[in-house]
């Protein structure tokens, strides 16, 4: 178990250095252009959260815990969910139904068009990024914990 975790190969590390910024940029592009191109908040959020798995594969669990703060990730998921509900409740403030598109629509084809769809998409992407990232970090932490326990058991034996 311990041998599987500590991977410090130069080939994997250099490949991760190339693919990590590409994955981040592609994920953010998919989130922001959800109403213009195929994709959306869910798909782009999962792509961005895959960056945590790349960091874990290349650099090991210690770098994951050094880079990402778990409590902050957990709070940011709640912020995404509250933001979605707030943008959807703008319709109630303007006097229409829940989830009504009330903001200025704009010209079709521009980035800031389509009213509340853009902001709902962004909120869902933020929320899915934080949620899937939290799941991956938690799995990595669990792996680290089990390996530590096994080492302790071996020492006691």
């Amino acid at each position, binding site marked *: 178990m311990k041998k599987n975790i500590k991977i410090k190969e130069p080939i994997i590390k250099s490949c991760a250095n190339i693919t990590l910024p590409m994955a981040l940029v592609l994920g953010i592009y998919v989130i922001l252009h*959800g*109403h*213009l*191109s*195929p994709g*959306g908040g*869910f798909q782009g959020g999962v792509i961005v959260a895959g960056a945590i798995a790349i960091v874990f594969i290349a650099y090991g669990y210690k770098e994951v815990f050094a880079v990402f703060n*778990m409590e902050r990730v957990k709070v940011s*998921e709640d912020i*995404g*969910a509250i933001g*979605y*509900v707030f943008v*959807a409740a703008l319709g109630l403030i303007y006097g229409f139904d*829940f*989830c009504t*598109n009330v903001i200025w*629509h*704009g*010209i*079709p*084809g521009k980035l800031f*068009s*389509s*009213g*509340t*769809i853009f902001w*709902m*998409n962004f909120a*869902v992407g933020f*929320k*899915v990024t934080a*949620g899937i990232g*939290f*799941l991956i970090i*938690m*799995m990595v*932490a*669990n792996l*680290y*914990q*089990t390996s530590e326990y096994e080492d302790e058991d071996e020492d006691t034996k």
Partner: protein
Amino acid sequence: MKKFFTWFSLTILLVMGIYVCYNMAVITQLHPTYEGIASLIVKDTLQKTSAINSCTAIVFDFRGYDTLGESFVLFTAVIGSAAILRKYKRR
């Protein structure tokens, strides 16, 4: 008595099923260009929401409740797995 009720309810179900199937077949013959909410969503997407990707327009505007429920499903999954894999706090 129990057997009688079983066969009675099954007979009523059969009659109602035949009636509904017949009417559904007749409605499509009477109104060949029957247009419901699906046709409205497909045709008026660009005018109502001005979003080019009509799939996102449907998911985030016409069916906003559905996306809200989906995101809460993910939220519940994260909470459940955090309750099960809670060992990280002892680190």
